[in-house]
């Protein structure tokens, strides 16, 4: 899907846990997620902490969308 969105001309960021698949599939802007059943969450954390973590990941995604890339790039969450 990610490639077709890109092909349509819209910059797209792929948030996913298994970044190697994303690289193989051909996403250009990639942000690593937490785990497969909860890419943007963590049931081990409190609700607030969990949301903070989600904020960080989405913030990184927005940064990725605003960044010029020439090749496939993984943007690590700070």
């Amino acid at each position, binding site marked *: 899907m990610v490639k077709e969105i*890109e092909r349509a001309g819209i910059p797209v960021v792929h948030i996913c846990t298994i970044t190697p698949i994303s690289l193989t599939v051909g996403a250009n802007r990639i942000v690593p997620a937490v785990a497969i*059943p909860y890419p943007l969450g963590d049931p081990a954390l409190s609700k607030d902490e969990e949301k903070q973590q989600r904020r960080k990941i989405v913030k990184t995604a927005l940064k990725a969308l605003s960044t010029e890339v020439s090749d496939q790039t993984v943007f690590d969450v700070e």
Partner: protein
Amino acid sequence: MSAFRIVHYINQFFGQIGGEEMAHIPPEYREGKVGPGLALEANFKGEAVIVGTVVCGDSYFNENMEEAKETILAMVEKAKPDLFIAGPAFNAGRYGVACGAMAAYVKEKLNIPVVTGMYIENPGADMYKTDIYIISTRNSAAGMRDAAKKMAALALKMLKNEKIGASSEEDYIPQGKRVNLFEKLRGSERAVNMLLQKLQGKPFTTEYPMPDFDRVPPNPPVADIQRAKIALVTSGGIVPKGNPDHIESSNASKYGRYDIHGVMNLTSDTYETAHGGYDPSYANADADRVVPLDVLRDFEMEGKIGSIYEYFFSTVGNGTAVKSAKAYAEDFSKELIKENVQAVILTST
């Protein structure tokens, strides 16, 4: 039952007219079999006969393709065949293209089964392998006996409407489509045999060659993210509770488009996952863990982004054919472009 009728296509060389110096000759029709037709017919064992043969120069065909195709089609049609065979062309490039083009054209126009044969590196193989059955042959006419046998066998199967097996069973060039078959040995034994071949430095054939993955160059970044309209897309199967579109838990045949106008976050009362490939309890408890709408709404209010597109798109990425996923994305991307969405956040599980 009377024998099936076959028309055969060959070039000037196999038509015994001459070599390269005669490659310019236009198509001509001869009654009965010529050259390689003898070998083919011997393999039909009376079940099929070659009623006529079209002989055409390779240069002529390739230089006048449209005209040659029409002329030859007319010749073939007149003979009222049940099946059309071209070649085998082995590694002769122009002959291979002619065989492939003509077989594909006869199949399209006359709606009868067709068979040809060529060497895997023949340019005609790559051009036509997805349209027609091309028996894989050796790279020179030394492989005629073997090629004729396999082409004839496949032709008879098609004539009798029998099930055509996988490429490894019939020895045709794979058509870019995976076909299931039952092997004589179970998988574990095939693996042990393959490993022993590999260990001994002997040839082995993988059952699935690694694909080439195509690439799309990255788009320029969003110029002003604070004013951008952003859409959310997921392959994590998040759907309104009750899965109103009945998206399948695996190999989804559709995607959903869900209104999130005024929705501030995805709660366990309103959303769940239809995905069958992971433990669903975490996403069912809080779907923001898969589609981060709550956080994005906060960013919207804080002015960190312009707005959120009022629908999100969702499908199940579990065992879903890449081709389907591609088609869904092609489809909703049109809407995104039309609605002036400037960026997409795609989440996967």
